């Protein structure tokens, strides 16, 4: 394990961005956990007389249409946004990895059938599919999560399938069978853990993407419901005020969104390098 740590340190030295991104993600998680306790104002309570104030010492990111403190809302929103992203991605990851692994391992008819199904999903304009699903199921957080998970699913299936497919004939897989493992346990206990690192990259990149997706849904009005603070909604609401020069309403949530996505992306990138055998010497 120390070797892995050392390896990571080496990568970090070569690629400081990854370190920064990892710190960023850590910070986001901390904010998500402790956010509600550290905010200066109630993120929900309105204060209409103080509406639309530009950033000042009292409200470092200004106030919104209802006089709520933008900074507090941003901080509190972290939890929801991360939760949406994490739960959506983990849903599609768990399902996708299992389905994909079995297909990749079994090949044959099962593989072809699932492949067809995945084709159908991929042929869908995915964002529109997400919109339709949220519209159909109602715009609750669960449904946004489900929609995001569903549109991610085909990618995970394909990815897992491909990763397993290249490994299924390796010696150690057959050896596991020769040691008396059943097919199912070979897939679940041997292949899945082995493709995990490669999938971790995918997950990290996808986390950012899931946040953007939720934001996009919010933008067209299918996001979480008010007055829950959520970055995408805040951007969408703030966008209405761009033309009147109330930049802080869109700038800060936009920045938060960007930072989160940026951290996940850079981390994913960095992880790719850490895990890339080419970089391992």
């Amino acid at each position, binding site marked *: 394990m120390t070797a892995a740590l050392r390896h990571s340190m080496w990568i970090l030295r*070569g*690629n*400081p*961005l990854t370190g920064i991104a990892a710190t960023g993600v850590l910070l986001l998680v901390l904010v998500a956990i402790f956010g509600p306790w550290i905010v200066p104002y109630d993120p929900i309570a309105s204060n209409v007389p103080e509406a639309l104030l530009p950033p000042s010492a009292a409200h470092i990111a200004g106030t919104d249409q209802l006089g709520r403190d933008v900074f507090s809302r941003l901080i509190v929103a972290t939890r929801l946004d991360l939760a949406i992203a994490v739960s959506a991605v983990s849903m599609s990851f768990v399902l996708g990895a299992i389905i994909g692994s079995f297909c990749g391992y079994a090949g044959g008819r099962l593989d072809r059938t699932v492949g*067809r*199904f995945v*084709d*159908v999903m*991929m*042929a*869908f*304009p*995915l*964002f*529109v599919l997400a*919109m*339709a*699903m949220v*519209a*159909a199921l*109602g715009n609750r957080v669960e449904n946004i999560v489900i929609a995001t998970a569903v549109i991610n699913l085909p990618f995970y299936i394909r990815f897992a399938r491909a990763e397993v497919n290249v490994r299924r004939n390796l010696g150690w897989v057959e050896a596991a069978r020769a040691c008396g493992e059943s097919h199912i346990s070979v897939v679940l206990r041997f292949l899945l853990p082995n493709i995990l690192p490669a999938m971790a990259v995918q997950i990290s990149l996808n986390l*950012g993407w899931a946040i*953007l997706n939720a*934001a*996009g849904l919010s*933008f*067209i*009005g299918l996001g979480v419901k008010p007055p829950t603070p959520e970055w*995408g909604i805040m*951007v*969408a609401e703030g*966008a209405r005020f*761009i*033309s009147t020069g109330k930049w802080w309403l*869109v700038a800060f949530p*936009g920045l938060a*969104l*960007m*930072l*989160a*996505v*940026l951290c996940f*992306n*850079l981390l994913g*990138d960095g992880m790719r390098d850490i895990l890339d055998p*080419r970089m391992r010497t």
Partner: protein
Amino acid sequence: MVRAGRRFVSSLPALFGVLVFTFLLMRVLPGDPAVFFASGPNAGKEEVELIRKQLGLNKSIPEQLTLYLYDVGRGNLGRSMMTGQLVTKDLRERLPASLELTFTALLIALVSAVPLGVIAALKPGSIIDHSVRLFCALGVCVPTFVSGLLLIYVFYYLLGLAPDPTGRIDVFTSMPPSRTGFLMIDFLIAGDIDGWWAAFKQLILPALSMALFVIAPLARITRASMLVSLGSDFVRTARSVGLSWRHVVVTYALRNAILPVITIAGIVFSTMLGANVLVEKVFSWPGVASYALDALLSSDYAPVQGFVLLMASLFVLVNLAVDVCYGIADPRVTIE
């Protein structure tokens, strides 16, 4: 060619699946289009029934599906309540707008992503590499609607450099005779340079905000495959016989590295076509995606179904095109 044909045929079940799935998904939507469209100030039950009959919603779902499939088989995708037009007509008019926008965005993205990826790969771990990476990461983390709005705010509202973001061409320029539907081409055919310029100016901002978003995946794959390619044995061979640096990098490394980029570009293209809803909305671009969004929000079944079918077919076509490109670029694929 045979292979392409076979592939096309093999994707027909997927298209059929998409068709049926969309049909059912739309019926699951809780909104009743008849009620929505019967929203005249005095619309009553009769009117709702009238519209329902017009849309064929008074029949059972299997019956509707059969009728719909029959219609689709004859090339009739139904009529949009929103625009009052045949869906096929709407799509035909709007698709070129979306395609033109997407193509341009993809072109911008490719033109910037490939060189970025290449220079990053030439010096992995260098400051250039990190800057490229940061730039790409920045691009991909700004939602297109935010970047679109910001571009409008800066280039149109503040600086006045860009024309008003209201579609493909400003209303005072007359449209060229429609040949291809692509304004950039139609204006050229018509020899109208001013018109071309006007249309180009309209196109550039939305295309940019879309391109910004897809530069990252393209640059990333370029970098990765360029790294593989540069580290490969045949590049070492090329170097071992003393080929010039340019020759090695461009002819040997890049040409091989571009193959996976083609695949990703295909995927990016089809995702963009569907995902540019937001950009189309922000720039009032008369494309198919914003059309589908409006239809979706008002539960206008026919346009949404038509749109999804169109996208799925495009997806198949794009994949086919990628295959063909790949086949041309890579002599190996024919035997596989």
